[in-house]
């Protein structure tokens, strides 16, 4: 089976092709890796290559193809897309091209202070809110230059990860 591998920050896509029995053979960037793969339990793989190299990988593949993997004390993050999904993304121009339209909470927390108001022109990196989480104050910064269209939260309010905190005016850069 063939997948596109997209690495955030890299423009060129990679490709991985795998076949599997318990024996696997994979082609990644033209190099061939083969051996024996065992899914010890869901998401935990032990790979033993033909050369005898053993690597244990914890892997979590999200529904959208986002992958989190951990191996040898290191965390990896990339996207894995099958042929179908990759074509669909190609048609819409991919995911990363869009410009941020709003500021979302990266973590759950409580809004301590709101530092921007509708109509304000803010510069990229400027603090727009202070969120409290786990007893720490965390500044939320503007991801780009823009004009604030609305502030969706008020001081004291609890928010969840992914909640929209603030919206930009369209094209207000």
């Amino acid at each position: 089976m063939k997948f596109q591998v997209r690495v955030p920050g890299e423009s060129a896509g990679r490709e991985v092709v795998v076949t599997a029995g318990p024996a696997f053979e994979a082609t990644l960037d033209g190099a061939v890796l083969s051996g024996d793969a065992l899914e010890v339990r869901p998401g935990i793989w032990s790979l033993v290559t033909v050369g005898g190299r053993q690597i244990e990988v914890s892997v979590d593949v999200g529904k959208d193809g986002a992958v989190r993997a951990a191996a040898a004390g290191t965390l990896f993050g990339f996207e894995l897309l099958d042929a179908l999904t990759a074509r669909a993304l190609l048609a819409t121009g991919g995911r990363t091209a869009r410009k941020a339209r709003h500021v979302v909470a990266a973590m759950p927390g409580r809004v301590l202070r709101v530092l921007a108001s509708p109509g304000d022109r803010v510069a990229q990196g400027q603090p727009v809110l202070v969120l409290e989480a786990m007893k720490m104050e965390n500044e939320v910064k503007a991801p780009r230059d823009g004009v604030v269209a609305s502030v969706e939260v008020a001081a004291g309010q609890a928010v969840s990860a992914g909640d929209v905190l603030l919206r930009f005016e369209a094209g207000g850069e």
Partner: protein
Amino acid sequence: MSPPRLLIANRGEIAVRIIRACRDLGISPVAVYSEADRGALHVRLSDYAVPIGPPPARESYLVADRILAAAKATGATLLHPGFGFLSENADFARRAIDAGLVWVGPAPASIAAMGSKTESRQRMIAAGVPVVPGMTTPAESAGEIAAFGRENGFPLLLKAAAGGGGKGMRVVRSEPEVPEAFERTRSEAKSYFADDRVYAELLVEGARHVEVQILGDATGRVLALGERECSLQRRHQKVLEECPSAAVSPDLRARMESVAVAAGKAVDYVSAGTVEFLLAKDGRFFFLEMNTRIQVEHPVTEMVYGVDLVVEMIRIAQGGEMSMKEKPAARGHAIQCRIYAEDPARGFAPSPGRIGRLRRPQGPGIRVDSGVEDGDVVPLDYDPMVAKFIVWGKDRDEAFRRMRRALSEARIEGIETSIPFFLSLLDDPDVVANRVSTQFLDDWTWEPHRPPDDVAAASVVAAALSAMEASRKRRKGTVPEAPAGGLSAWRNARGPFGVRE
């Protein structure tokens, strides 16, 4: 006769630590819990448990009335406050004692004397202990702080008068920064300590944080059990501690211990406590503050000196003598890494959530103190520390190698943790050579540890095999669309391929 019961007015890792000391003494542990902690490990390991309110600490773990009522309801006769929360609240200690409880800690008067940073400074100056130049009373206004800065020079360190443990501290580098910093520090001080008083002192740059563990009992004996190196701090929060400090010679150790014992005796100290010093580059040291409670980093001292400090605290509180007549011999070197639920790849943003798979490091020289298990939730409402990895080695080099082993062996999934941060930190040549100061981490940028190429390739192959397997099962209709397993709480991947950074 049923065993005595000890109520633990705390949560998380330190509550579990105290439960274990209770078990070692044949005492029955009593937990208290907020609504966020109903299913927490410290509850499940206790013999009794009492709910004390909603998740915010100020409505539960900081409410003295509820805690004292819980002690009464369960027939507890001892109370251990742990660290943070009400542990350095002299008024709470007094109320507990008035309610007939044995307070596992120093006398309220000792807490009060050391609890106010300004009062403790005055007492220490009177006792001849060297202190850093600083305000002798809390600041009434930002203007007072600015004036102190104009007189003594910048940078300053703003501190909560009732603070401790690195909470409620902030550096001010110049006068224009004063008003905002004053407001923020006051706000954090109020939310964490229910006391918004703040003061300023001169920041001695390039200094180390070195502290001495002391232990006193009712016979008047006060022993010093060596020092801990705690210079590696981020946002004024210690992240890695060592015992002993490689920067402290036997002669310096003896002098610091003797000053620490004098500081303890000046306030008639009974129980375990820590005298914190700033160790300047020129070898002078200044009293910073005294923590009148058990410290997060106490295990490194325990491993080197072969002493159970929490057990000693309980024995001493019960009226017994400490179990040693003199300082025990030191052996080897210990290091602790505080594992936080935070994301090094996103500026150490908090990462609460449900823990999926958990592999704790094991084997020779490794101790793990943790308040969570696989499947447990790390709530948003409290300190993000999920575990302490403590290692012992016959020398500092062996301890470093074992800590690298522990960090590499560990897996904590479902949340982000500071493990990748520590893996890189332990390879830094300055950290290895102990060329550090309390500012070291301010100037240090985390770069993820680079694994061999084939590890990165293997992660892609395993992901592809997983995806193929999932797709095969979906076609067969044997599983629903979402992937099985406990890892789905992990957020989407970010950062470049190969390594998350």
